[in-house]
């Protein structure tokens, strides 16, 4: 397992570097700088050419952020179009040239098997659908508490999904979640518990796109189960649902805390389940290694 101190250091470095500065319009650059710093602490650098899914994901990150960065500069319709088009890319990018699309080798069209084409056709719209649902929920409710809680919920889901991927045996894939979540944390805290209304737009493409990519990597290349993957994707949507009418909403921060606590609770259930499997499957292996490393 990775060094817990190093993991904490990577998370905190990303958070400190990404802490919102004086220029609100430059916050996507700070987020990117935070993420890159965290990755450097973990000594994770994207390979060139990006042959693995994790490498391709890392190269996709700045593009996701760039679209969020352009939100204040572009007309809303064009920005949405860009955002939604980009959210159609995670699935083909992550699965590019993997066995999921290219094997069995019989009867391929443009190098992809019919099963591969079907998988692409079914999965590609999912990140976009999630983003549209999130935005719709935010628009329908038009309550600041949802917008405030959403980044924190996404940070929570990212962190926990990373840990679950690591517990499944894919360390590098899970570690990616730490700088990602760290880089989102300052903005998420500011949005959730800041004294004033958020002064920066929510980087939905980056937050949601990152979570989707990480879940896809865990599902197709790690040992994240379809159920775990669906739960981690659904939790931010469920916890963003408007509360029943009549429920008093005196304070946005209280609502944020409730929604975040609910997210944390649901995520911890998934963590517990993943830990139970890890304890049975992998812990004996590690225990043997630990025992050997302690020998003089």
């Amino acid at each position, binding site marked *: 397992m990775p060094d817990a101190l190093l993991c904490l250091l990577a998370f905190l470095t990303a958070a400190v570097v990404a802490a919102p500065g004086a220029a609100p319009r430059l916050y996507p650059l700070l987020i990117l700088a935070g993420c890159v710093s965290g990755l450097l602490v973990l000594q994770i650098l994207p390979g060139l050419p990006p042959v693995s*899914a994790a490498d391709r994901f890392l190269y996709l990150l700045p593009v996701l952020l760039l679209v969020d960065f352009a939100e204040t500069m572009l007309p809303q319709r064009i920005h949405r179009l860009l955002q939604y088009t980009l959210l159609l890319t995670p699935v083909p990018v992550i699965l590019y040239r993997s066995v999921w699309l290219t094997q069995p080798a019989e009867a391929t069209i443009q190098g992809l098997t019919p099963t591969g084409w079907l998988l692409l056709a079914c999965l590609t719209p999912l990140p976009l659908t999630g983003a549209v649902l999130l935005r719709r929920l935010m628009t329908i409710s038009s309550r600041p508490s949802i917008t405030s809680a959403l980044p924190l919920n996404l940070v929570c889901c990212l962190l926990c999904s990373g840990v679950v991927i690591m517990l499944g045996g894919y*360390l590098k894939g899970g570690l990616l979640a730490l700088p990602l979540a760290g880089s989102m944390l300052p903005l998420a805290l500011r949005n959730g518990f800041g004294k004033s209304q958020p002064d920066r737009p929510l980087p939905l493409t980056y937050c949601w796109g990152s979570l989707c990519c990480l879940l896809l990597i865990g599902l197709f290349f790690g040992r994240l189960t379809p159920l775990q993957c669906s739960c981690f994707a659904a939790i931010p949507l469920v916890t963003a649902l408007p509360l029943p009418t009549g429920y008093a909403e005196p304070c946005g921060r209280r609502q944020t805390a409730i929604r975040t606590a609910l997210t944390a609770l649901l995520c911890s259930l998934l963590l517990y389940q993943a830990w139970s499997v890890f304890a049975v499957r992998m812990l004996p292996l590690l225990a043997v*290694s630990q025992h050997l490393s302690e020998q003089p």
Partner: protein
Amino acid sequence: MSVSRVLIRLALCAAALLPVTASAAEEYVYDAVHSSVSFKARHLDISWIHGRFNEVDGKFSIDRQDPAKSSFQLTIKADSVDTANAARDEHLRQPDYFDTKQFPTIEFRSTKVKAIEGGYEVTGDFTMHGTTRSITIQLMGGRQIESRGVRRVGFSTELRLKRSDYNFDKNAIGPIGDEAVVIIDCEGMSK
């Protein structure tokens, strides 16, 4: 005699010689039952972990008159890694190690063959984990026998590879040593 007749006779002579030239190369396919591709890697620098790949395919063409015309191909299915521990095998299949969903095969394709005493020196492209490097192996053996109507030939080799040369995750090179020894014992059956 006209030029066209000369040309026709030359072409007929060449055609008559062609089967003889082609038959000089013996074609074999990898016999999975009597062959093995195994490996070992250092654990904590005190012992060796052994493993093998259970699904291997290959073919060789051996030209004893002109060894440079021989060729060797081996394709290993990375998913078939077996270290006698299911949890560890599952871990090895993940992207920290072989990343078998992205790189399903490990391949060797010869590019140059030279006869040496007791076998062949084979240079070729070895592709593992999405990285191709040129390596040279000493393929010992090559004695041909006929058993139950099937012509057979056997080779053995041992090669040392560094995982770091093949773009494996450097963070995963810790308790398991960087260098792995691959032992190939293969038997070919005539097609």
